């Protein structure tokens, strides 16, 4: 474990804008997990802007779980994907075209000696609409919201409750893929 990081200290960061319809999926889930999966060693936060800003959020945590929206060519709204920085796919908010990409931010943090997490898991939810202002999800995403919540709840529960490490979860998740 990296020096200066408290063992098991975990961050769940919901990324997105809650007034852009489906774009709010990350914050909405993070806020719900904050109530349903509380643990003294786990912090729940929400943010919108990635890039350099991400470094300030994630430093000092041993494990970080991002929940963000994603748009892929053939995905169905509500599909859930799991990535690590090694097999990273561009989600909606982790990079910031205004400054740097997610991977560049992490690399920059490492090169500048930031206390970055040992493990990062990116959970991306396929969304349909993020260009229209509104506080509700689209019907397609709304229909699957509880299913998405349950799936991610079961996945992250053992980590946020410090029963297993995030590395163990990542191995398990990749074996199940």
């Amino acid at each position, binding site marked *: 474990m990296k020096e200066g990081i408290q063992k098991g200290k975990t961050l769940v960061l919901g990324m997105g804008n809650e007034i852009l319809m489906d774009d709010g999926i990350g914050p909405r889930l993070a806020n719900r997990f904050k109530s349903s999966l509380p643990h003294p060693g786990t912090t729940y936060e929400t943010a919108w802007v990635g890039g350099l800003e991400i470094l300030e959020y994630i430093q000092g945590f041993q494990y970080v779980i991002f929940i963000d929206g994603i*748009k892929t060519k053939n995905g169905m709204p509500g599909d859930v994907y799991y990535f690590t920085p090694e097999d990273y796919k561009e989600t909606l908010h982790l990079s910031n075209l*205004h400054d740097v990409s997610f991977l560049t931010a992490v690399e920059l943090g490492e090169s500048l000696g930031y206390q970055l997490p040992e493990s990062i898991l990116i959970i991306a939810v396929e969304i349909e609409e993020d260009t229209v202002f509104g506080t509700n999800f689209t019907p397609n995403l709304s229909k699957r919201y509880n299913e998405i919540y349950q799936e991610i709840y079961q996945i992250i529960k053992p980590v946020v409750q410090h029963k297993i490490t995030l590395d163990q979860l990542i191995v398990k998740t990749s074996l199940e893929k």
Partner: protein
Amino acid sequence: MKQITIDPITRLEGHGKIEIFLKDDGDVENVYFQVPELRGFEKFLEGRCVEEASQIVTKICGVCPGCHHMASGKAADAVYGVEPPPTAKKIRELFYMAHFIHSHIAHFYALAAPDFVVGPTAPAGERNVLGLIAKVGVETGTEVLKQRRIAQEIQALLAGHQTHNVLVIPGGVRKGVTEEQRADIEEKSKGFIEFSEFSLKLFEDVVLGNKEYVDIILNGPYSLKIHSMGLVDENNKVNFYDGKVRVVDTEGKELCKYTENEYREYIAERVEPWSYLKFPYLKKIGWKGFVDGQDSGVYHATPLSRLNAADGMATPLAQKEYEKMYETLGGKPVHATLAMHWARLVELLYCAERSLELVTDPDITGKELRVPLNNKPDEGIGIVEAQRGTLTHHYWTDEKGIITKANIIVGTTNNNAAICMSLKKAAQGLIKKGVEVSDGILNMIEMAFRAYDPCFSCATHRLPGDMPLVINFRDKDGKVIRTVKRD
């Protein structure tokens, strides 16, 4: 006719697309910069209380939320016909300086400097902030992130959160500044001044010390002779929070100077069928097309235009740098697009100095934070300078203060026509018959665009797919004959 498509644009906020149309002989025929998504946040404000507008608009965009927060707050003051007390105005401006500082640092070091420090035609994999750190050293990199973070922390301290600000309310601010906070920000402001001076020295050494770069700035395909807009104080010095909007012509002579309430007499917006982003122009000159020169109605609202439009900077160190810039570049006004980076650094120093001025002003810890709202609400306009240009919020409300209509002209929108023209000029200068359109050339075209620091988050955005840049080469029938993916 051949077509080159760059979609999306790298390292810039928002979703935009550059279409370069080539003639059969390989020269550039035309260039279009398109924003293919609809911006609709004005509608979102309708039906909301004007008191909560300044909080809603911070969610328009995570890049310059503080600008919308300020402009919206000023518009709400005007809706109620009130003037905040001096302490409230100074706290607002102190917050705003931190907002500019964090943004200008991020733009210069993450977006602009790699082109100069690493090189405009260096391999894309090196031409980024990591390549920059490799050249200037880890210590500088650490300082960049530290100063940026401190600026964010000041915003969070004063406004509750660095992104979703809750500082401004109609007639004032929600909370004051304690002596302990004041002393802390004073020390941090001194650090900003030191860092700004360091950044200007870096620019001088790396950019001005390189004849090739100076030549690119002054003589390359990056010059555009258009009018300049910026907010000025009562002495015609640059101001970001308050004052009048001044526009000078291509020779530097004042074309107009107006208050918030008069903006519709001076600015009109044109719609083109190929973009959702409007094209503002100077109403009294009229729309003459995408042309530059004294007779054109096109203007820009950028760090460079702000300096062009003003008679100087309101703080001493920034004033010296202002004078040095114009002396080096041949006098006012400057029309070299890439000089925007230099102007941005002069502004950075101004913000640092102004932050120190404000935080050492006895009023800053005053207790009178707001005035009562006794007037009937109706209509109000708020204008501030955003990092990316003059930002206008205009609200109409009913007698209960519910917004019935809103109009917002965002900073980048002011520069829409100028961006299109700068891109065309750069493309025509760099893409020639028989010249291979390399990654370096495409980056040099993007440099024309990047100088404006445009942000289209107000139009929302997404990153489609894995690749930050896809270039399609099409034959005259529009068929893709080659695809290049970058990064």
